[in-house]
């Protein structure tokens, strides 16, 4: 039983302490966290703060290109990054089902630590809870994050104007297909790995162009189709994107054809969509392409006056059709 989590690990006493000592502290080495206080206390310069939270319930926990730990760090870092924030501090909350192997917690802690280090963010506070068998599925993680935002950064739909160019930072749908291919009950093999990555490493190269960046978001759950609709509705502009410009790997397209999925709605965990001033689009595109996370970036469309709040796609064969938000939950527990 020593190799597994049992309910007593959640009792707040000796066993909890053992769990923290063996599975978390060796991996989360931040000095603030090691004070083991009920809170992390730190100084922040006089500046604007970005704050976000996200929960992760991905199934399976380990998938090609990552695991729930890496995802939990990148997901929160990315939510900060696309707002133009520099991620600084993260929290991590673990809800663990009894019987979960300690070895797997260690692996997950280790990859969280590595992802945080890559992103340059610090995991400064954490919590664990253990629940009875069946009360949660293996392991859920919540992370929150704090970042700082420069005064001259103001990204958001309110700044999107007709005539802006829409840039996508790379291939669509890799994360969704990586998860599907590793899920029980769907037997297919691909070489696709999740694109899970900390986007602040890419955004930092774009911040010198902040004046020309109108809005940025990362197309996670709901995919690109949903993201574009959200921005269209919030900004009141229309959008046209071009099917032949959308970067989709052949294997991803193949999986979509077989399973009846649409790459436009597949989740991504290391991509961003930027709405940029037309005149600066090429410069920003080149800046993205210089960065490994934006190597395959391309302009996929533009915003326009009409139809206000709607997204249109010009199809490969020259027809046009509407793109709506994702409606059905095609792929539950993808992140």
């Amino acid at each position, binding site marked *: 039983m020593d190799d597994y989590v049992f309910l007593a690990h959640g009792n707040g006493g000796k066993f909890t302490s053992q769990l923290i000592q063996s599975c978390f502290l060796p991996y989360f080495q931040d000095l603030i966290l090691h004070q083991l206080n009920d809170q992390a206390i730190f100084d922040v310069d006089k500046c604007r703060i970005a704050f976000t939270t996200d929960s992760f319930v991905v199934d399976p926990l380990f998938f090609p290109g990552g695991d729930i730990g890496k995802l939990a760090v990148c997901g929160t870092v990315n939510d900060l990054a696309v707002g133009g924030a520099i991620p600084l501090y993260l929290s991590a909350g673990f809800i663990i089902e009894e019987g979960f192997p300690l070895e797997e917690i260690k692996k997950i802690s280790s990859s969280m630590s590595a992802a945080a280090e890559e992103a340059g963010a610090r995991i400064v506070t954490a919590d664990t809870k253990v629940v009875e068998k069946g009360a949660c599925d293996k392991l859920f993680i919540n992370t929150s994050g704090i970042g700082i935002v420069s005064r001259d950064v103001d990204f958001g739909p309110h700044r999107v104007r007709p005539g802006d160019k829409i840039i996508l930072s790379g291939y669509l749908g890799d994360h969704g297909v990586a998860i599907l291919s590793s899920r029980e009950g*769907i037997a297919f093999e691909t070489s696709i790995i999740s694109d899970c990555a900390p986007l602040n490493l890419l955004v930092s190269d774009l911040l010198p162009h902040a004046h020309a960046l109108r809005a940025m978001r990362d197309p996670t759950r709901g995919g690109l189709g949903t993201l574009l609709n959200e921005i269209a509705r919030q900004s009141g502009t229309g959008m046209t994107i071009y099917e032949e410009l959308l970067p989709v790997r052949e294997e991803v397209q*193949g999986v979509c054809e077989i399973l009846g999925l649409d790459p436009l709605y597949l989740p991504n965990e290391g991509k961003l969509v930027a709405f940029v001033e037309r005149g600066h689009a090429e410069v920003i595109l080149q800046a993205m392409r210089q960065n490994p996370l934006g190597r395959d970036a391309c302009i996929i469309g533009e915003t326009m006056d009409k139809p206000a709040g709607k997204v249109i*796609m010009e*199809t490969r*064969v*020259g*027809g046009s059709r509407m793109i*709506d938000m994702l*409606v059905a939950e095609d792929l539950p527990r993808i992140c």
Partner: protein
Amino acid sequence: MKYLDEFRVKGPLQAILAKIKALSPQPVSLMEVCGTHTVSISKSGLRSLLPSHIRLISGPGCPVCVTSLGDVDRVIMLAAEERNHKRFIITTFGDMMRVPGSSTSLMKEKAKGADIRIVYSPADALTMAVENPEREVVFFAVGFETTSPTIAATVLNAQSAGISNFSIISNHKLIPPAMEVLLEDATTTIDGFLCPGHVSAIIGTRPYQRIVERYGKGCIISGFEPLDIILSTYRLMLQIQERTPRVEIEYSRVVQAEGNGKALAMLYKVFSVTDARWRGFGTIPNSGLALKEEFFPYDAAQKFGLTAPEVSDPKGCRCDQVLKGIIIPPQCPLFATRCTPAEPVGACMVSSEGTCAAYYKYEQ
């Protein structure tokens, strides 16, 4: 991607489109029978390219959409029974989960605790039966001639492996009888058919000969890519203008005139033809497939005495007229108001191949 990209290119499509536009502008209504065609037309924006005198109307070829309300209710009743007694694992294809019954859906029953699982293949349901010997695994089977042979194969596998805790509820239907009903209906206007590619891969061309001979309507067996559909439309227009209705195969990379003999043999080894209830059509004689008597141990309806209740379609829902191509979805008063993909009233809004869902998603 091979066999796909070359059928999604602008140049050849524009060339065929030019030929269509060069024909005399005779108003025609062409029915694409299959839901996959409907989605492809909407998704590729073909309607926006065709001249306005060519009306493409959607037919009854979405198996989820034509499953009658009573047949959905029958499985929901079984799900409610499952919730109370934990005897069954109910399995089905994903789209069936959200189809509303008279008062609830399988998805809602699952949320309340019934063991209902989505499978991608009936073979997965059979595997589930092997892994759960103490439970009965029931597969809620819908589909046309395309999917029926795989169900037949699964039943034969269950029989040869001696698996006794697996059964199906068969709602399988046959396409050609529904096409004939449409032509007999005085309220429909159909000048020719784009026939379903994958159904035809099984049944071949013979069943459509009757439609040509008896009703004088052309039938083109079409592939599903934009170029397939536009080429089939052109060929059908030529037939109409030259008054030479016949069966043609456009989807020749998959379909052979004689169909798939092996699949058909397996199908009719397990199933016999029976009358079937279709949403929007009522009962169509000889349009369904029921398990033969020797396979009754695999027929959940026989095994557990399940009968489909008599229920009427939801008030205001005009799925029936959509399925017959009499109206297009925006003409239904519930479309995009009370009936949306998130809160569907009729099955045509639920299925990914449903006409209303395709219009809602791509053509609003």
